[in-house]
C-alpha cells in the first residue's frame, strides 16, 4: 500500500479580518509525512495563516491546492472532508462532553473504522483511555491538549494543523507532546505546527518558515534555519 504522497500547497495568500490584511503574501507547502514548523514573533499572523488555510477566514488573494485539487476558501467542513484537521491553540475541546464524546465528535463526518482510530489514539495517549468517561473540562491542561490533538486525528486526516500545542505545558509534558507528534508523523500525516519553542520544533522539522508581519521572511530545512544567524537573533536567544 504505497499510496502517492499528497502535497498541501498555498501560494500568495492575502487576507485578514475585515478590511485589514494580516497576511500580505505567504507561500507555504507541506507533504504528507513531513513536519513543517511556522515560527515568528507575536502577532506575525501565524494563527491567522492556519485559519485562512482551513477556511475560517476568507482569503482575498492566493490559492490553496491539495494535490491537484484547488481548495481555496472552502468551508471548514469541506476541509475536514478533504483531509485537513485544525487544532486551535485555545478552546480546543468540548468541556462538558466526555473524553470519548469529544473523540466521537472528531469523527463526526466519518462512518467507518472509528474503533480502529480510537484504539490507535488510546495507544498514543493511554491516559485518555483511563479517563474516557470523564468530562473533558475536568482533565489537566496537558491531558486536554492531548485530547485536542486526538480529536483532530479522529477525522483520519492527511494533514494536521497544530497551533502552539505545547503552550503552557511543563518541560516533561512538552517532550511527551513532541514524542507523540513524531509518532503521528510516522502514520504518514503531514503536520504543520506553529511553535513558540523554535529551537526544539525546528529540530524535529523537515522544513521551517519564519513569518514576520504577514510575509515569509526565511524558508529552509529545519537544520539550516537552526544555524541561521538571523533566526538565532530573532528567536533562539542569540546562541
Amino acid at each position: 500500500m504505497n499510496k502517492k504522497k499528497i502535497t498541501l500547497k498555498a501560494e500568495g495568500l492575502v487576507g485578514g479580518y475585515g478590511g485589514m490584511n494580516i497576511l500580505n503574501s505567504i507561500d507555504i507547502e507541506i507533504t504528507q509525512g513531513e513536519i513543517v514548523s511556522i515560527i515568528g514573533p507575536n502577532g506575525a499572523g501565524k494563527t491567522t495563516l492556519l485559519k485562512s488555510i482551513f477556511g475560517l477566514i476568507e482569503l482575498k488573494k492566493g490559492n490553496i491546492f491539495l494535490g491537484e485539487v484547488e481548495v481555496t476558501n472552502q468551508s471548514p467542513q469541506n476541509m475536514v472532508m478533504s483531509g485537513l484537521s485544525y487544532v486551535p491553540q485555545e478552546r480546543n475541546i468540548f468541556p462538558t462532553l466526555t473524553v470519548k464524546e469529544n473523540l466521537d465528535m472528531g469523527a463526526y463526518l466519518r462512518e467507518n473504522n472509528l474503533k480502529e482510530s480510537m484504539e490507535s489514539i488510546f495507544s498514543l495517549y493511554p491516559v485518555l483511555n483511563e479517563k474516557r468517561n470523564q468530562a473533558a473540562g475536568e482533565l489537566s491542561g496537558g491531558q486536554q491538549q492531548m485530547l485536542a490533538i486526538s480529536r483532530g486525528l479522529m477525522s483520519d486526516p492527511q494533514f494536521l494543523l497544530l497551533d502552539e500545542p505545547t503552550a503552557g505545558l511543563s518541560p516533561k509534558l512538552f517532550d511527551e507532546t513532541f514524542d507523540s507528534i513524531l509518532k503521528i508523523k510516522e502514520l504518514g500525516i503531514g503536520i504543520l505546527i506553529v511553535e513558540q519553542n523554535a529551537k526544539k520544533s525546528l529540530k524535529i522539522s523537515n522544513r521551517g518558515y519564519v513569518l514576520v508581519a504577514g510575509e515569509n521572511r526565511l524558508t529552509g530545512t529545519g537544520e539550516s534555519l537552526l544555524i541561521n544567524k538571523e533566526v538565532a537573533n530573532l528567536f533562539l536567544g542569540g546562541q
Partner: protein
Amino acid sequence: MTELFTYYLFPGLILGSIYALGAIGVSLLFGILRFAHFAHGDLMTFGAYVAFSMVTLFNISPYMAIPASIVGGIGISILIDKVCYRPFRQSKTIVLVISSLGVSLMLRSIIQIFWGVDYEVYFSGIQPSIDVAEDFRIKIHHIWIMLGSFSLIFLTHLFLKNTKLGKAMRAMSDDSELALITGIHTERVITATWIIGGSLAAVAGIFLGIDTQLSPSMGWDQLLPLFAAAILGGIGRPYGAIAGAMIIGVAEELSSYPGFLGENAPLLSPAYKTGVAFFIMVVMLIFKPTGLFRGRQF
C-alpha cells in the same frame, strides 16, 4: 401534612414539569444560538391552540391532539427561524433578542385573530380525581401531565446522550466555533434544536391548558418562570433547566402555603406567585449568575 401534599407540593411538581418542558427549550436554544428566545412562551400558546382546534373539530381529548400540536409547533418554529432569526446569525445578540420580541407579538396577534381573545377550556365540568391515601387526592389529569412530561424529558435525555446529533448539539452548545472546525453540520444542529424546543413547547402549552385554561397570553405569562428555571439551572444546561423548573414550580406553590407561620395565613398572597420566580431569578443573577449547574453567563 396531606393538605401540604394535595394542594401545594404536588401541584408545584405539576407546574414544575410543565415549566421544565418550556425551560429545556429556552436553555438549549440559548446554548446553541446564544440568545434569549422571548417568543418561547408564545410557542407554547400556539401549541395549546392547535390542540384546541383539534379538540373542537374532531371532538377528541387534548391528549390525542398532542401529535398534531407537535407537528404544528415544529412547523412554526422552523418557519420562524428561517424567516426571523437566520438572517441575523452573524449579528449581535441584541438583534436576535429584539427579533424574538417581535415574533412574540406577532404570534400572539395571529393567535388572537385566529382563535379570538376569550378564555377557552379543553373540557368543562369537574375534573375527575382519585384518592391515593386518606385526604390525599390527585387529579387524573395531573397524573397524565406528570407522566407525559417525564417521558418527554427522558426521551430528550436519551437523544442528547446517545445520538450523534444529540452529542453534536451539546458540543455546539459548548463551543460553536470548535463545532464548525470539527466538521459538525451546524445548521442541521440548529434545526434539530428547533424541532426539540418547538415540540416540547407545544406539549407544555397543551398541559398548561389542561391544568388551567387557554388564553392568547397564557404562554407569554410563563416567560418569567421559564427563564428563572433556565437561569437557576445554569443557562445552556438542559438538565439544570429541569431541576430549576421543579424548584420554581414548587416554590411558587409553596409560597402561599398557610402552614409555615403556624397561623392560618399564607406566607404570601397567591397573587404574588409570579414574584417568587422573579425573586429567585434576581437572587441567582446577583449571587450565582452561572446557576446551579455552572452554565453560561449572560
